[in-house]
């Protein structure tokens, strides 16, 4: 194999691909980066059994070929190369990287032992990279982290025509976000359950492109793969199998009371008050006309309370939440004003964001949170 390529192009591609190299490779070859020179393209790939990353760059290919080299080492080398064209060629079991007057020789890894990379699914559409990354971050926050029920560690992606819905829950809260995208074909309908952590990482890694392509495999069993592509960079992620809870029914039909609070002071107050809330004890919120009182701690232990301005329509209500889950929601709505709708103090509350106190709340993002039952 022999090819020549621009230094910056190579360094960028190697750095990006090396990002998905596993920190603790299950088998040594997974620490390798696969280089495939074919026609006028150099393809770089990495794979950790769950996520694969692949990028194609233009190169002057003299001899076609396929080699595997240590990804960490190649990334370190490319980062420090002078700004001159880079020539890479194999010599037996070694590969030489020559750039200007710098020359490196590194050993290759057994390319025949490298696992086959998953194929990129085809059915697709596109969405702005930053919209997608923001939506994923908003939803992934509610995904479960323990492995007892694997499907709760995933984010469900539902595609119905030009609408995409993301949902995740860990039993105590549920985050749902909808956004519009451009499907390649009208009437596309598909469902996938993607591990939340990898989805979040992938979405972040692709934000530099203007728009990203999302590709889902067909509905056939066992073809569970989702692919993302942005600016020539492609990743695939394995899907989780399993039945996701029927979450739409969890949102209450109407609300007995709706409260509106400015987000920033609310967040500060929750953080302060929850200082005295011991692990797994709630903060209590009491909404009355024009006022929200937060309290935490009880009995002989330390106690705290704080009052805020808030507007309320409907019945007065007193309700308690896990402070960490409440803060997660307040940060995820990503709006200056938070709107909370309640039915009763034992039923879940729904949090949405709006740009100012008088604006209409949008249903684009909804964060459902279970209250903690207060004893006595």
């Amino acid at each position: 194999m022999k090819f020549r390529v621009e230094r910056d192009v190579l360094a960028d591609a190697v750095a990006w691909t090396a990002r998905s190299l596993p920190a603790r490779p299950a088998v040594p070859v997974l620490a390798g980066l696969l280089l495939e020179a074919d026609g006028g393209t150099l393809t770089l790939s990495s794979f950790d059994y769950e996520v694969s990353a692949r990028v194609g760059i233009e190169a002057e290919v003299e001899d076609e070929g396929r080699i595997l080299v240590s990804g960490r080492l190649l990334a370190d080398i490319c980062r420090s190369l002078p700004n001159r064209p880079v020539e890479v060629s194999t010599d037996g079991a070694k590969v030489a990287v020559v750039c200007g007057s710098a020359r490196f020789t590194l050993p290759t890894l057994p390319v025949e032992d490298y696992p086959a990379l998953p194929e990129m699914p085809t059915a697709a559409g596109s969405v702005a990279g930053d919209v997608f990354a923001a939506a994923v971050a908003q939803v992934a926050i509610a995904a479960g982290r323990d492995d007892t029920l694997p499907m709760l560690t995933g984010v469900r992606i539902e595609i119905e025509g030009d609408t995409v819905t993301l949902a995740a829950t860990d039993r105590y809260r549920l985050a749902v976000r909808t956004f519009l995208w451009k499907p390649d074909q009208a009437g596309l309908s598909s469902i996938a359950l993607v591990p939340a952590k990898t989805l979040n990482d992938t979405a972040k890694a692709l934000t530099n492109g203007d728009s990203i392509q999302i590709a889902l495999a067909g509905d056939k069993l066992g073809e569970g793969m989702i692919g993302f592509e942005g600016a020539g960079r492609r990743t695939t992620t394995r899907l989780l199998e399993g039945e996701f809870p029927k979450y739409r029914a969890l949102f209450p039909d109407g609300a007995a009371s709706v409260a509106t609070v400015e987000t920033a002071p609310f967040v500060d107050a929750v953080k302060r008050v929850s200082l005295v809330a011991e692990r797994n004890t709630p903060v209590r919120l009491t909404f009355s006309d024009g006022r929200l009182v937060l309290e935490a701690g009880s009995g002989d232990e330390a106690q705290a309370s704080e009052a805020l301005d808030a507007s309320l329509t409907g019945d007065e209500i007193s309700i308690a939440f896990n402070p960490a889950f409440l803060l997660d929601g307040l940060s995820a709505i990503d709006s200056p004003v938070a709107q909370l709708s309640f039915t009763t103090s034992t039923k879940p509350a729904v949090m949405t964001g709006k740009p100012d106190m008088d604006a209409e709340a949008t249903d684009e993002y909804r964060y459902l949170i279970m209250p903690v039952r207060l004893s006595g």
Partner: protein
Amino acid sequence: MTVWDDLVGQDRVIAQLRSAAVGARGVLAGEESSGGMTHAWLFTGPPGSGRATAARAFAAALQCVSPDLSLGGEPGCGHCDGCHTSLTGTHADVDVVSTELLSIGVKETRDLVRRAALSPAGGRWQVIVLEDADRLTEGAGNVLLKAIEEPAPRTVWMLCAPSVEDALPTIRSRCRHVALRTPPVAAVADMLMRRDGIDPEMASYAARATGGNIDRARRLATDEQARSRRAEVLGLPLQLGDIGSCMAAAQRLVDAAAADAKEITAELDARETEELRNALGANGPGGRLPSGTAGVVKELENRQKKRATRTQRDCLDLALVDLTAFYRDVLTVQLGAPVPLDNEQVRPSVDRVARAGTPEDTLRRIEAILACREAIDANVAPLLAVEAMALTLRAG
């Protein structure tokens, strides 16, 4: 070559797994009937019979992507990309889980449950091979129950254990059972000749002496030192003259086992370390580990250390098994049974011990060896246990 080549004397099992692999292809093609394929398998068989080998071969057959398949070939060609990476242990959808520890706990199994819920990367089957299913703690077994009973549609579990009784009843009842037999001596000898090019006499000696344990037979046939250490073990019954010599013999036995273990692990350790360092880029210019990777190497070293401990224990146990085989031969001679001796090459010593005692003595001695194995299993200091055994062997 096919993936089944390493399975010796297990024709019935191979036939069963082959037809299951064909059935699995049907399932992938969307056929209704599963054709002998199912989602959970339990491979049992005595040590060295090739439980894990069978599971890996079956996994490879499930991942076979040979072009011959469309021409009516059988899955499991042994050289396509799918078979090759499955057998070398790098296939994305074949997860071989083994432990260097004495048990597999809840924490490790939870991660398995999560992985089992993923869909396969190659669009075929995701196979999880659990090599030491007998080492699952009860809690860990319970964590797996649900995942084994109703795995994701394309996940296949393959558990390996010495016998059905070693798996929890609740796990056992959720698996299809594949029983491997002790490979016949002739088949083992034949494989040693065919694959490792060992001369017939040595092959048949090694196969007979190790009672059908393929890995040990190969080792014995190829390694001069392993043979001399074995001779040392079998010499023990004649060295039990007085208490002092009993102690010395016990020490030699323990040392021989330790030396055996050291040789096995040293070879493996060096190769693994080299592969990992290469992959991390430590063998490039400078020869230093790139930053942030020292932890991975350290982790490997820790794992190797734990494995060394376990291997040492395993080797001592095998030495005691050899010793049991010797007394079995003594009993054979004493009773005049018309079966071949395991240790024909030390027939003079067998005869001598046989003449010096009664069958009852021999049975008591075999009991003493068993007691010693149990004691070591219960964490008694190995040397102490072997010394106690040597004294009992002397008394008869």
